[in-house]
């Protein structure tokens, strides 16, 4: 269910945890990393939003006389790439794309996952079973197989990549929401609301969903990480976002052939991906502990 294992559990949620010692201490410690992660993300977003505007070069300005300038030379802080474009400008513009892909794919996958989970969990029965079997079927494909199969079929532009990633990342959420709703459905407050004549929609959205917010937020954060990585994998396998639009993934695309002559071409975007994904993972982990002290989502 993951691209190269990236959505392997990032925390301990898969196995029930019960009252281990010093939860407050542990939570604080978690928050510590989450804090760092959150700060890095904030800084990244700000940098990508503001800095390109004040740089002397744009990300698409080609200067073939200054190709492969190493970092800290010729007025290029992070050097230039194989067409003489400023690496810093490209990294930041790529960050805009990659982060946007991350956030939008996350948002979309959340919407799909929540809707499917809500409907399946609330109505149960045949519809629920049908929905969840579909989820099971999609989960039978390793994500990367799905990504590959589908990305080979579509136009490789930003919108489609977002759609594609979202389409392969909603199943976990659907499962979480479905389990949560199914459990909450029979609780007193839901039954009471139903007795009072509230509509299905109202019960689902107003009574049940808010109770499932914690795992959804956690899952959402981890999904951003997943989406950023997925974009990189799609690019690596040759179906990524089209040039000249840079993304961290497609900047890495051909970088391996310059590993010996211009290693910064591979190291910088790879490092950015690792940094961003790690930060989101830390944040997600922190959210898990902070939002749900019981941590047990089952």
């Amino acid at each position, binding site marked *: 269910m993951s691209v190269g294992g990236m959505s392997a559990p990032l925390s301990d949620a898969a196995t029930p945890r019960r009252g281990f010692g010093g939860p407050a201490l542990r939570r604080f410690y978690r928050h510590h990393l989450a804090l760092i992660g959150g700060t890095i993300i904030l800084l990244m977003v700000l940098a990508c939003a503001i800095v390109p505007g004040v740089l002397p070069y744009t990300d698409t300005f080609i200067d073939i006389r200054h190709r492969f300038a190493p970092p800290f030379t010729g007025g290029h802080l992070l050097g230039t790439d194989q*067409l003489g474009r400023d690496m810093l400008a490209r990294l930041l513009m790529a960050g805009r794309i990659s982060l946007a892909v991350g956030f939008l794919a996350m948002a979309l996958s959340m919407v799909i996952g929540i809707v499917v989970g809500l409907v399946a969990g609330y109505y149960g029965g045949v519809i629920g079973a049908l929905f969840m079997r579909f989820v099971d079927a999609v989960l039978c494909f390793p994500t990367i197989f799905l990504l590959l199969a589908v990305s080979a079929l579509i136009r*490789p532009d930003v919108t489609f990549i977002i759609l594609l990633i979202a389409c392969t990342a909603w199943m976990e959420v659907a499962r979480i929401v479905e389990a949560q709703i199914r459990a909450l459905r029979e609780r007193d407050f839901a039954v009471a609301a139903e007795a009072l004549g509230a509509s299905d929609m109202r019960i689902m959205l107003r009574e049940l969903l808010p109770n499932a917010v914690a795992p959804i937020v956690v899952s959402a954060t981890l999904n951003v990480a997943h989406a950023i990585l997925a974009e990189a994998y799609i690019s690596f396998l040759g179906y*990524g976002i089209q040039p000249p639009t840079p993304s961290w993934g497609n900047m890495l695309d051909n970088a391996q052939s310059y590993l010996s002559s211009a290693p910064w071409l591979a190291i910088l975007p790879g490092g950015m991906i690792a940094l961003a994904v790690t930060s989101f993972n830390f944040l997600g982990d922190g959210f898990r502990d902070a939002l749900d002290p019981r941590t047990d989502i089952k």
Partner: protein
Amino acid sequence: MGRSFSTSSVGLRRREALLLGGAALLSARFAAAAQPSAKPAGQVIVGLSQEPTVFNPLMPAIEVDQGVWWSLFNPLWGVDPQGNFTPQLAREVPSIENGGVSKDGLVWKLRLREGVTWHDGTPFTAEDVKFTLDLINTPGFRAGSRQGHNLLRDVTVTGPHEITWRMERAYSPYVSLLAWVFIVPKHLLGTADDPNTAPFNNAPVGTGPFRWSERVPGDHITLVANERYFGEGPRLERVVFKYIPDLTALYTQFRTGQIDHASIDGILANFYDEAKSLKGRVISVNPSIGLESIAPNHGFPILGEKAVRQALYAGMNKQAIIDVIYYGLPKPAESFLPPEAWAFDAGLPAHRHDPVQANEILDKAGWLRGSRGIRERDGKPLEFALSTTSGNPLREQVQQLLMQDWQQIGVSMTINNKPAAVMWGDFWVKSQFQAALVGSTFMTGNDPDCSYRFNSAAIPAKGGSGSNTYQYVNPEVDRLLQQGQTSFDKAERKAIYQKVQQAVRDDLAILPIYRPSPVEGFKEGLMGYQPNVNVRSNCWNIETWYWAKA
């Protein structure tokens, strides 16, 4: 890596016998120092970036397959680097002069080599040749191209080693086509229930210098010396074709010595400088028969306009593409034919990068600069999308340079790349693209006939049969091409094809960029490597390769 087709997957590449740099010198030195041993010895590992999977040489295949075929099979005659036909299974190459072809070009007669045996010991006869030619036209058989072969009539065996046939109409390029047809054994394929799935297809038996040994799918193919080979060689005991799916990995393994010869796509231009300095490796820059060009879709109104094509051509900085992205290796080109072709016209006007002229042409044609500096006419912006195979980094860089070049003359170009299986599907064949960056060849075998590219009857989108996906229409060119196919007179044909080259260049039917220079490499001490522009794989003469004794 995840690129399924070779990076320059379009087009067949044939190479010319020209070793640049130190390679020729080195070879000469070693040739003097070492004599090939009498008994086959040693092995060569050939690295390929695509996997050979088709071992029935009559079925649809790509160029890496052909490299393997040359080791296993023989055609009736081959083509040497100078373009001369060299008899293999036939005793001589038929022509009007030697009586092999009748004056009207309709009746062909062949005499075949005697004493040749298949790898399993069965003698080779005229029946095998008849079977091969007939099989290509057998309805249920998944033959590759039937182009030319569909003109065959009454293939008749007139003796154990004699065969004759008629052609429905005179078709002079057929002798070139036959140089690429490998003869298959009747006694194995003829007895199979279904030649499409016969066991032969995965355990081929030929007449060639090497015998099939084993195949590890997804990894390599091993061939061993055929000691009963009728021709010269083989001098190697074993040849291994190793599949390395990524060009960077291929180069790395060439550099670390895991493969002896980096073939076909070989070494990417960006590794060339480094490769030259490697110890114990010889790098060969091979001119090619192919042409890298911008293929405009003439059915797309903006690019159907000659003035626009002229402006784009003048606005293109060819030299920058060659120098920057391909490290100065390729040669700029004007003609679709390579200089090695006997019909090549060296007198075509040379391209000059001239944005001022480009701007004038567009101004005169009524394309005027609008907002954002993009030209417009009748409210329509001057913009189009340029497509190529996605995941080809060097081509993507070319696109980005062109984008910048053309922006300066007020033309907006966008990039719309697609995976190979999509790019060369209906998108290309049915002319759904606007413009494409492609590498292609324009010859039939080593014959200058290019009807399938430029004849207006060869436009698939209009129901024609051919590869004129540019939808180029020029009645004069049509007439010339028709004339060229029916004539067997070389001088007359040369004049005809030179006129075709002039017309195509003048119309800018395609915007020629450069003639690629594929870089191959091999270990020092490997003798006999000789690039051949007239075949698709430089393993064509692998039977004469050997290791020089240190």
